[in-house]
């Protein structure tokens, strides 16, 4: 079946209400039409669009709300401040969104299971402190690559511990990650040693590399080459895969659709590189695709492959949809669950490395503030379209939701709005997104 999990239609996620007896299957024939992913049912491009529209009207809107949200945000802020959509600001916006995006992706691994990981912010904080301390020339003085690997492993270990407590000891994830974040906050402060740690000293090679991770970028030429390579790879893979399905008579999207997707990829690739190559410095030259864009892209692709194209990912969605069914099918619930928390912590660790690079110097207050990121991570995931109830969500949701949050922060900041009011707005957006989620699920199921 080529339907992407994460866009599963009605009735598969979550159990029925108490008291429901045997599933009455006589109803299904009339209901199903709009639930089949349009890609599968369509034989031509126009059929595809019609089917998609039908799906949206029945409530299965996928990423449409968040994309619409991005468009609205972009237009609104552009009107308020013409500098919003400038090349410099767009890159700036992306940089600010990176942390949100990564943490949202991390959180999605927990949300898909129907769990929650409240510690992602602090894992990031801990990771940032650890990597910064490890490269200190007067301290551990590790090479940058060793520091990063150690940090990621340490974060993964934290995830393993939390995951085991949830999966094997059967403790509620809410509590485990709540206790976890408290403990990690204390540990991070201890590692920090009470003062601050910085990686801003460009005399030291290791610190310089670390700094560069967030602030550095590819040269324009390399940017173009990279883009061409990526688009070519992705395009060829997509074309070949769909062609193979068609050859074997399996359900496959129409050729025109595949071509359109590849064209879209190419166009967006060109646009992105062009924007990035514009000189965005006030003095001197800063241009080119930032490293972090590639990092986020790699994380996005790998996680998407993991979730959509491997057994592991399939089992994750299964557990989120119906854990008992998964268990009876032979899926090892403790193992999958633990690994999801490991992945969540690992990606939070990546975010931590970027965070250290971004902040340049870390203090106790910054560590304490990293706690607030978990709320934004959950918000980003929900805004992006991931369900809080498990079984529904994709990595791309984290990226899009993170962009929305980052966009709001960026736009409001440009308008001179104080950070308190920004929090108010984000709260409003989160509620609106949740409302859309609830209403769309209600519409899809016919009756609450």
């Amino acid at each position, binding site marked *: 079946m080529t339907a992407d999990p994460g866009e599963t239609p009605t009735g598969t996620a979550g159990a029925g209400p*108490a*008291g429901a*007896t*045997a599933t*009455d*299957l*006589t*109803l299904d024939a*009339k209901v199903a039409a709009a639930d089949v992913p349009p890609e599968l049912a369509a034989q031509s491009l126009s059929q595809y669009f019609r089917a998609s529209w039908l799906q949206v009207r029945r409530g299965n809107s996928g990423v449409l709300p968040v994309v619409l949200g991005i468009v609205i945000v972009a237009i609104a802020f552009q009107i308020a401040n013409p500098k919003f959509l400038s090349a410099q600001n767009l890159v700036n916006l992306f940089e600010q969104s990176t942390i949100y995006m990564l943490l949202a992706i991390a959180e999605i691994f927990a949300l898909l299971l129907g769990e929650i990981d409240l510690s992602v912010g602090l894992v990031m904080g801990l990771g940032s402190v650890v990597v910064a301390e490890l490269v200190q020339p007067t301290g551990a003085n590790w090479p940058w690559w060793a520091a990063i690997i150690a940090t990621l492993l340490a974060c993964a270990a934290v995830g393993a511990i939390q995951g085991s407590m949830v999966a094997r000891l059967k403790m509620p994830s809410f509590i485990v990650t709540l206790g976890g974040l408290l403990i990690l906050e204390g540990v991070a402060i201890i590692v920090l040693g009470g003062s601050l740690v910085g990686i801003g000293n460009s005399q030291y090679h290791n610190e310089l590399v670390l700094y560069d991770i967030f602030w550095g970028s590819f040269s324009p030429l390399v940017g173009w080459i990279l883009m061409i390579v990526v688009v070519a790879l992705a395009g060829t893979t997509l074309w070949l895969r769909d062609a193979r399905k068609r050859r074997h008579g399996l359900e496959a999207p129409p050729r025109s659709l595949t071509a359109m997707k590849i064209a879209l990829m190419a166009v967006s690739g060109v646009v992105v590189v062009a924007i990035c190559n514009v000189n965005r410095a006030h003095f001197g030259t800063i241009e080119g695709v930032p490293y972090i864009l590639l990092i986020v892209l790699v994380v996005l692709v790998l996680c998407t492959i993991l979730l959509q194209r491997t057994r592991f990912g399939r089992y994750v969605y299964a557990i989120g949809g119906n854990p008992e069914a998964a268990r009876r099918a032979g899926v090892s619930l403790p193992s999958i669950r633990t690994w999801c928390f490991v992945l969540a912590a690992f990606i939070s660790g990546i975010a931590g490395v970027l965070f250290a690079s971004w902040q340049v110097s870390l203090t106790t207050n910054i560590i304490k503030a990293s706690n607030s990121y978990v709320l934004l991570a959950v918000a980003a995931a929900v805004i992006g379209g991931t369900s809080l109830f498990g079984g529904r969500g994709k990595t791309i949701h984290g990226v899009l939701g993170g962009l929305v949050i980052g966009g709001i922060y960026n736009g409001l900041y440009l308008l001179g709005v104080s950070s308190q009011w920004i929090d108010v707005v984000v709260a409003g957006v989160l509620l609106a997104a949740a409302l859309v989620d609830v209403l769309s699920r209600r519409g899809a199921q*016919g009756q609450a």
Partner: protein
Amino acid sequence: MTETNESPKGETPTGDGEPLLKLRGIDKHFGPVQALYGVDLDLPAGQVTGLCGDNGAGKSVLTRTIAGVHQPDAGQIYWEGRPVRIHSTRDASALGIETVYQDLALADNLDIVQNMFLGREKLSHGLLDEDSMEKTAAETLSTLRVTTVRSIRQPVASLSGGQRQSVAVAKAVMWNSKLVLLDEPTAALGVVQTRSVLDLIKRLRDRGLAVMVISHNLNDVFEVADRIAVLYLGRMVTQGPVADYDRQNVVEYMTTGTAGGRPFETTAAASGEG
């Protein structure tokens, strides 16, 4: 396949006249799906009616319509001879209709007394009158001869399946009910516990209540029922005294809507509508 809607012929054997509850021509649909087509049903007092039907035949929908959870789209309900409208579960309770659902609808964390009075607690001076509630609950349980529960104050979670079923039934009976609807009361019970629940049902009947039991299990049905009614794809295909039926034709009615290739005639002894 042809299916007929049998005109109701069942009558109270004692000849009291009107059955306690009469349904005539009940329709119910959910969106495009029709769950009940012109259903007629008689539930006389002092008798146990077994409602049979395959999955999806509409048994639960019919039960919930009587209980006030759903409103019929067409047709009429008669209670003690008068036409009535049952808009809510409270209306049903006010009439004297109590339902025991398949999932028992008991809150595990509350004790027996609290569950039996859920939603209808007695107050004294604005606070819960625990003492009088406990007394009433104890009396009801002892009248029904439920004596092996250790304490009336133990949480329902600590009761076995049979005991919970008894509590659910006692809850239904406590409110001066006249009609008790039981949805699959023995479905989740073992042999011994099934026995005790069936005895309980007979005791309800002996007290003069009308009882309707939905059940798949024809052994149970034939043991307790005085009347049988069979639903097939939303239609009432037959109903009448249990003596007119045996397991085989009931199964045929359940799976095909007819028995022996032709509509089954109830015994001619049944007179027409009163």
